[in-house]
Each structure stands twice: as C-alpha cells, then as structure tokens.
C-alpha cells in the first residue's frame, strides 16, 4: 500500500484537483514547480534558517512523566505549542511565503477559522513585506476577536465572509473567489492539508518537519527513532499530516487520529468526518466529507473552532479507508477534561484542538512500555475564554 501522493495527485481514490478552469493556470503552475522550488538548496537553507531563528525550532519533544504515570504508557509531547504564534500553522506559512516569493507573487490571501492560520499568514506577510488579505467568516470574526486584532496589528486586512453559514468553509470559498478574481499577482496560502493537488502534499511536506524532528529527538531519548504510536487531532489535518509523514511507510508505528465528536457523533452537532462523511468534492479535492444525501455540504460543529471543518484532507481519508490509521473521535466534554488534566499534571494549557488528541486515553488503553508521541499542536491562550466559560473559572 502506498500512502504518499501519486504522480496524478491522488492518495488512493482521494485527492485530485477539481477546480474551475479559472484556477487552472495558478494551480498548474504550482503543481509543476512546487517540488523543484521546495528542494532548491537556497530555499531549504532559507526555510530552515527561519524555522530555527524565527519560529524557534526544533520544538521540544517533552517526556510527560506525570501524564505517563496517570495513563500507564510512556508519553512524549511534541511541543508545537511553543512555536512563534503559538501553533504548528507557522511551519506551513513560512514555507508558502517563500514559495510565493519565488513564484513572483506580490499579494497573499488566506482563509481562517479560529484565526490561527490567519495570524500565522499575517505574520509571515509582515516578515516579508507582502500585502495580505485574510478571509474569515463573519460569525468567527465575532467570536475570535483577539486573533482579528492580532491580524490587524500585523498589517493584514481581515475581510468578512458573508455567504452561507459565515464560518470556515465560507471563508475558504471567498478566498477561492478572490483567487479567481486575481489570477496573476496573488498566491493563496491554504492553511490545512486540503484543497486541490498539490496543496495537500505541499502543506504536508512543510509540516513534515514535525515528524522529522520526532525521529532524531526520540533516538536521543530512547535510542530508537520510531515510537509505537503517533497521535494527533484532525480537522483538515495539517498537524496530523506533519506528525505522521515520516512514519507512514513504517507500519510498526501505529497512527492514531482523533476527530472532534462535538456533542456526540450522532447528536447532529459533530465534526467527526470519518464517521459521518461520504466521499465527495470539497474545495477542489475528492475526500471524505459531511454532506446531505443530495450532495450539499453541511455545517459541522465542535467546541474547537480549528476542528469544525466538514471535510478532512485526502491523505487522511486514504489512511482511514485503507486501515493504516485508527480513527477515534472525542466529544467536547472529553476534550475539555483532557485539556484541564494536562494543565494540572504538566503545567501546560493546550489549545482545545490539541486537547482532542489528549482525549485518546478515554478511548484506547496502551501497554505500560508503549512509547507514544502526541502532537501538542497549539497552546491554549486563544481558548482561555472558552475554558473559563466551560469550567466556570471566573
């Protein structure tokens, strides 16, 4: 079984580029050039220099002793929460801004849900002095005010998506429409491992720094490169894709994905795409997708704004369908409890997205000598108000 993208842009039956002709020249140019540009020596040098000096990589691989004692396994946390801007998102935006520069683009657009990808994009645009427009659902703008303010401070224009449900999927539609209207000077920085080929693969490769580091860091600590399991939360799936990447072909390493079950998989308010979705087309790729019988895309729900996307990246659909990965889903309550537990046991307040990965212990038992690496994809500062409201902390 092959888990990486094939030459036509597919992972098994998933992926491809289902785009209107208006986007063809841009996507095709990217498809032809992305590998070549990405592996140029000068690109790699600049990319890794920025990851080190600007983002603060490598991010620590931290042995969480008290959490390990509690759950009876050796648990390592990959600390993406310690990156500049507070999450793994910046790994991809650094890569894509360098890509955009080499493609001669002078304007950047992006979509954002909770605002993390928008902030990471606005950040690299400030860093390189490139114009930045971020589309964000009107509903999300209202509930993520601090991130909207951060983007504005960084010099980005935040444009409200007023169509449809006015959340992440509509922000993505608006960004795509902007790209149709501005086909020559603009690069679209997609924030997750979704979209038309080559985006899922490009984003995954930029995020693969996560598993590249895990390998040598674990070797230093445990004398072996491969853990027994790598575990990550999945919305669109970029932190998961980066966490799994260098372990995909090594089937001794178990791959675990945790989706957001919201108020329960069958509650009607959920974002558990693998359980609720069917094969369909969203934002330019064929993948598992939450939709009506009639093929209309439905609105997902999760307490975590970063996980409420109605689709999942095509690589993940393939990992699910092929059985390479185990998929679980954690409810709002399970995730919130797990986030609080990590705070109390380890002194780390995780993003609610990452708390879903930590909720794996409510669903699966491990052996005491199993070595686990959990991607702690982001920090919880942005979620403080949600934690306060949920646990009535104020």
């Amino acid at each position, binding site marked *: 079984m092959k888990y990486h993208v094939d030459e036509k842009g597919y992972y098994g039956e998933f992926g491809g580029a*289902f785009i209107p*002709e*208006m986007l063809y*020249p841009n996507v095709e140019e990217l498809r032809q050039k992305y590998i070549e540009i990405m592996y140029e020596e000068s690109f790699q040098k600049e990319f890794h220099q920025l990851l080190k000096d600007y983002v603060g990589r490598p991010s620590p691989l931290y042995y969480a002793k008290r959490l390990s004692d509690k759950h009876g396994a050796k648990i390592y946390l990959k600390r993406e929460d310690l990156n500049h801007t507070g999450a793994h998102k910046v790994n991809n935006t650094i890569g894509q801004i360098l890509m955009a520069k080499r493609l001669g683009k002078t304007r950047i657009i992006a979509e954002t849900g909770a605002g993390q990808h928008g902030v990471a994009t606005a950040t690299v645009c400030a860093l390189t002095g490139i114009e930045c427009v971020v589309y964000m659902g009107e509903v999300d703008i209202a509930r993520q005010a601090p991130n909207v303010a951060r983007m504005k401070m960084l010099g980005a224009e935040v444009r409200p998506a007023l169509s449809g449900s006015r959340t992440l999927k509509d922000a993505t539609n608006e960004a795509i429409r902007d790209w149709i*209207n*501005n*086909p020559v000077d603009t690069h679209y920085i997609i924030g997750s491992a979704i979209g038309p080929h080559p985006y899922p693969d490009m984003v995954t490769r930029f995020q693969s720094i996560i598993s590249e580091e895990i390998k040598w860091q674990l070797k230093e600590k445990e004398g072996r490169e491969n853990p027994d399991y790598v575990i990550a939360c999945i919305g669109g799936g970029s932190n998961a894709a980066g966490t799994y990447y260098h372990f995909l072909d090594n089937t001794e390493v178990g791959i675990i994905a945790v989706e957001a079950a919201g108020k329960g998989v069958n509650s009607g308010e959920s974002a558990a795409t693998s359980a609720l979705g069917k094969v369909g087309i969203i*934002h330019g790729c064929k993948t598992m997708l939450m939709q009506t019988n009639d093929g209309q*895309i*439905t609105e997902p729900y999760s307490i975590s704004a970063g996980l409420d996307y109605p689709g999942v990246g095509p690589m993940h659909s393939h990992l699910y369908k092929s059985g390479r990965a185990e998929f679980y889903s954690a409810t709002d309550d399970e995730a919130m409890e797990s986030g609080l537990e990590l705070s109390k046991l380890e002194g780390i307040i995780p993003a609610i997205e990452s708390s879903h990965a930590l909720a794996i212990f409510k669903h699966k038992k491990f052996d005491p000598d199993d070595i686990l690496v959990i991607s702690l994809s982001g920090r919880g500062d942005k979620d403080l108000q949600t934690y306060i409201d949920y646990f009535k902390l104020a």
Partner: protein
Amino acid sequence: MNNRIHTKLNSDKKLLSIYFTAGYPHLNDTVKIIQDLENSGVDMIEIGLPFSDPLADGPTIQDSSTTALKNGMTTEILFEQLQDIRKTVSIPLIIMGYFNPMLQFGVEEFCKKCQEIGIDGLIIPDLPLNVYQEQYEAIFKKYGLTNVFLITPQTSEDRIKKIDAASNGFIYMVSSASVTGSKSGFGKEQESYFKRIASLNLKHPQIVGFGIKDKKTFVQATKTAKGAIIGSAFIKHLTANGTDNIESFIKSIR
C-alpha cells in the same frame, strides 16, 4: 452526436442564452421560467442546479442558490419538475451545476435522467478536463449529452486547443478573470481577448458568459462570438420582479 444544441449552433443568428437557478425565487417556478424564456425568444437555457458552496459564483448567484436550497430544491425534485418539459419547450436545455451533487446522485444515473427528460448538455465548472476524459466522457456520450468546457483570458493557447478538441458543442468563454456577476461593462482588455480567441479559428463556436448584463454588453460579446449567456442580471430581474415580466427583460436585450 447531434442534439438541439448543434441545431441551434448551426443557425445564422447570434444566440442569447439565459441562466437561472432552479428553485428561485420559489421552489416551483422552474417550468414557468423556462416556458416564458422560450416564448420571449431566448435561444438556449442553462438551468442552475443549486449548490451550497458555488466557488465560481459571485454574491447574486450564491444568494439565489442559498434561497433555492432553503426552498427545498434537490436534484430529484428538479428532475420531477422537468419530467414533462419537452411537451412544451423545444429550445436546448442545459443543466449547469457543481460536481458534488451529481456525484452523489450517481453520474451515470444523472446522465440517464437527463436523456429521459430531454436535457441536451451539462456545464460543470469544477469537473476538470482530464477527469472528464478519463472517467466520464463515455457516459456523457452514451446518453447523448454535450459537455461544455470553460476557457478564460488566462487559458493558454495549447490548453484552448485541447479543450476545443475535447468539446462537442460550444466553448463557454468566460469574459474576464472574475466570478459571475462582478464586472461592469467590457473594456479594451476584453475586446482584444475576444479578437484573440476569434483568430484561433476553433472548431467549436464560443458563447461568452460572465459580465453580460444588457443590450450593450450582449452586442459587444457577440461581435466575434456565436452567442452570450446572461445569468446574474437575469437573477436580479427575478429578485426585483418575480416571474411576471420575463419577456420585458429579454426584449431589453434584443
């Protein structure tokens, strides 16, 4: 293969084609709109199958789609509404929609239904050329359906030739780099694009869409092209006037 589209394309006149979203303004307006359009002298109709996430459309068609879905429009209901359409309507009918609803209905089943009803062609903006050729061309042909591809000002000459070769009716020529309904009038850029395409002497005639809204833009667009498609401007007319004055809108174009 020969259907109503080909017959129309072989006529001498410039063709006026109208797009509307099925289920808008009201769920059961579909048949009346089609009949009124034909009676007003329209040459061809694109029936829009509404989709929740219409990527290539501007606010006017997005909003009409959202309303149509709220009104309860589905693929199945549209096919029911169109069941007897050929008893009263003889101009070419094309269904325009995004690929996911067709995929969920079953592409072959969808095409079969189209043939039964008397639909002549499909326009599916997010079904790319290579996927169509590899997986669906045989099915479309089996059911006598013309598939219409788009070209834009950014489409390379090489690709235009590929698209021309893969076409079997007309080529949908997108007037400018934009989503639907967003340009006001055509400038020099469009004129030179229209001329450039005309000079390629393609096998298939071109019909211009996006940005046609009145007599002036219709005349400009059809100077070199075989016809033009009006979408957003007609939807706006429906929004303002309901389905009562369709003829007056069409007469204002030609």
